[in-house]
């Protein structure tokens, strides 16, 4: 493998944005036919470096060579012409058009008549070659996220890409889809393509990559190291620059009074299909109740009915007050903090400053509110304090929220939600898409909430996270709670069965029956 020639050589690349040195004399090489992982925390400069390779940014200095030839891209078009294709984190597809139409979009051929049937065949042939299955005649909006990603990959392959840059491709995928993607990546390199795999998920990097380059704060901390012999711990240390504790320390603690009590709650999802079918739950002071389940089984809806974002039937008592079917303001006044699933579309206002984003909940009350006006001097000062306390990396509190990385944006949201001193915190996928350092920070914050006596409802798809944080774990499947188990004697196999639709009693009964069966009569 190591003898194969370089497909890409980036030498001494510096990319400077005003006030930020995004890439500081970075060297990066990609060999033909390898999967090269580019690892680093959010904001370490991974995407910036690859955007330069894809022709989106111009390096301030340094050289880029493709197959030994020095190039100077001034647009993505130039990069595509050299066989470089980038699969972005956010898909760039037209929802109302078919797969084939999206793949052909922007190309010179076909010229006038679409002759879609003919091109459907071409797309199918390409699919066969790499094992990327998706119906070419389907409209994009009908596809799952994983399928949409396949379309993005097909788009770059159709344009003749030999060097694929995949920007955190697994962040949006379900576990099964991740396996499929890894399979596809392997088949692509087997056919001579080279892949840059941007990620901060250590597990996947060790599973799929041949070599790894690690970036930290714009600098290379490991340059093209072979992955063999590297452990998750080694990689994490290179990324974060210190030892990472993989399980945050949780102190034993007795839960207090019931804060949240949900009785027979039913609700529909956005498509009008029942999403919650009679949910019963209780969360106590100083307790974290984890909600496990495969995504789309009613977790989002559960969080939304509690926070007043979705109508429902049944009763939801927060400290004895029924908040079911009340507008969000009622639950906010009742001391409910909400870390929403969608950080950018629900949890923040992208074009407003960090300051503005930190007062979304507090602007009605003293001291942020002063009569009818907002005391922006106080708000700014307060935001500065939060920025310091929560280690939010941003040039200033005037920075627009959309300029923040995922981890820093999540810290802004948590800072805001925690500073209302909540009695109940509803956190949905709070660490999704974040890097190790940020995950650790967020998890620590959630545990601190538990210690200070807040009741926490934590929805997560990462079982590992639930096991390390929760006191009890409830499993949801198709809008029903399959069972609730205390964390101490949670059995991963049992949880897995519940996540696929078996009731806890049934599992236990069956187990008892099979145990009994083994007993000789």
């Amino acid at each position, binding site marked *: 493998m190591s003898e194969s020639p370089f497909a890409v050589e980036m030498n001494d690349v510096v990319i400077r*944005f*005003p*006030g930020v040195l995004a890439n500081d004399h970075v060297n990066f090489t990609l060999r033909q036919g390898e999967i090269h992982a580019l690892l680093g925390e959010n904001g370490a400069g991974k995407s910036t470096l690859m955007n330069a390779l894809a022709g*989106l*940014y*111009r390096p301030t200095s340094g050289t880029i060579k493709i197959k030994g030839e020095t190039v*100077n891209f*001034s647009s993505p078009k130039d990069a595509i012409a050299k066989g470089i294709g980038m699969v972005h984190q956010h898909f760039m597809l037209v929802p109302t058009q078919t797969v084939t139409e999206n793949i052909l979009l922007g190309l010179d051929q076909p010229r006038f008549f679409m002759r879609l049937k003919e091109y459907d065949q071409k797309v199918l042939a390409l699919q066969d070659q790499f094992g990327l299955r998706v119906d070419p005649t389907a409209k994009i909006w009908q596809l799952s996220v994983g399928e949409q990603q396949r379309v993005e990959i097909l788009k770059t392959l159709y344009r003749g890409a030999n060097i694929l840059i995949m920007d955190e491709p697994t962040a949006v995928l379900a576990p099964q889809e991740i396996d499929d993607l890894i399979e596809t990546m392997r088949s692509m390199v087997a056919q001579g393509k080279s892949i840059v795999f941007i990620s901060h998920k250590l597990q996947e990097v060790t599973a799929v990559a041949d070599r790894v380059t690690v970036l930290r704060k714009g600098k290379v901390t490991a340059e093209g190291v072979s992955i063999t012999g590297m452990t998750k711990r080694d990689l994490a240390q290179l990324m974060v620059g210190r030892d990472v504790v993989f399980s945050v320390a949780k102190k034993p603690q007795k839960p207090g009074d019931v804060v949240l009590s949900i009785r027979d709650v039913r609700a529909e999802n956005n498509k009008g299909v029942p999403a919650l079918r009679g949910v019963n739950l209780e969360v106590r002071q100083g307790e974290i109740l984890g909600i496990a389940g495969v995504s789309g089984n009613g977790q989002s809806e559960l969080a939304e009915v509690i*926070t*007043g*974002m979705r109508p429902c039937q049944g009763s939801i008592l927060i400290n004895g007050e029924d908040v079911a079917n009340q*507008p*969000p*303001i009622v639950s*906010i*006044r009742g001391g409910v903090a*909400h870390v*929403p699933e*969608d950080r950018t*579309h*629900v*949890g*923040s*206002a*992208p*074009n*407003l400053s960090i300051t*503005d984003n930190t*007062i*979304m*909940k507090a*602007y*009605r009350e003293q001291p942020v*509110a002063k009569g*009818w*006006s*907002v005391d*922006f001097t106080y708000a700014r000062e307060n935001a500065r304090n939060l920025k310091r306390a929560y280690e939010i990396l941003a040039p200033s509190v005037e920075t*627009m929220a959309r300029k923040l990385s995922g981890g820093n944006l999540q810290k802004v949201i948590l800072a805001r939600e925690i500073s209302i001193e909540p009695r109940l915190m509803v956190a949905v996928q709070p660490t999704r898409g974040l890097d190790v350092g940020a995950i650790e920070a967020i998890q620590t914050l959630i545990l601190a909430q538990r210690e200070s006596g807040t009741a926490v409802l934590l929805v997560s798809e990462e079982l590992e996270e639930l096991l390390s944080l929760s006191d009890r774990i409830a499993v949801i499947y198709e809008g029903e709670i399959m069972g609730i188990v205390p964390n101490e004697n949670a059995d991963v196999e049992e949880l897995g069965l519940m996540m696929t639709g078996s009731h806890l009693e049934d599992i236990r009964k069956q187990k008892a029956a099979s145990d009994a069966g083994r007993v000789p009569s």
Partner: protein
Amino acid sequence: MKLPFTVMFEKRMDDVPKWLPAATSIGSVVIAFIISGIILKLIGGQPMRVGKFFFEATFGSWAAVSDTLVKATPLIMVGLACTIAFKMKLWNIGAEGQFYIGAFAASLVVLIPMVPLDSPRFVIIGLMIIMGMIGGAAWGFIPGVLKGKFGVNEIITTLMLNYIAILWNNFWIFNKWSDAGFQMTPPFEKTAWLPRLADYAREYKAFSGITLHLGVVIALVATVVVWWVLERSRWGYEIKLTGDNKEAARYAGINIVRNIILVMMFSGALAGLAGMSEISGVVHRLQERISPGYGFTGIIIAWLAKLNPFAVVLVSILFGALIVAGREIQPSGLAQLLQGIILFMVISSDVLLRYKIRFIRLHSPAAGEVEVA
């Protein structure tokens, strides 16, 4: 011709410098004047002479400045009306109709009359201001409720309500309150006139013939109020938040339906105030065509001012000058030509805010790049 460099547009990654939006706006106006000059030259005119005349007609004397400001006054208020609605991404295209209904409602004070016409001036004018705002607010309330409660597109409703408002006015001035069959009401009593500087000509000789009226003060007060609401008040924060991300606003517990209605009413009230100021300060009666499309110009003004209340004042003065110049200069289309070119320039100058332009010298190392913001 082969240029010694290539021009490249690059997406801006960094923040736009604070001075740049203002600079591009001013630059656009300057370039628009230059282009108009060239056009004028091409058709055989004398651009310098016209330019001089343009300036004299609009800013050349106190009377000219006064004329310009009189025209700018309603523009400021409708510009503010659009600004506040646009901040919440409510596309109120109905300032024109709200202007007419504001004028109508203010006229009712005199026409019914609601108070004896020999009441003190401040009572009548005060009442007219209130009625003007209520009228405009009512005309904003209708599309506000339709949008807030039923999700009806406000662009369509506000646009349609414009025609209703104009015809409603016509009905009353042709019918009940027609002055000897003409499409206008009889002139208002002097007590319903906004004070003008000319009224004080006896005391201060310099004021004779100066038609500038109290409306300009009302407009400036409105400017400060709108600025305070948008930049300092809790409500303004809600408006900004809703305008930027409606879902986040809902999540923050903001009552969006109520705010849609309130913002439409506030916007309507400002446009209605403009209508009141125009009939009480300039025409002194309710009549047909009291607005040469102020409500629509307000949309352009709000946009050119980038939704900044103080910039609205400056842009309104420029547009006021263009209206005055259009009246004074032959062919009168010249001012409209200029208006069109300015708008075109400002809209296209937005490119500079989103992209950087680089000139790259050919046959020279990358170090020879010249960057233009």
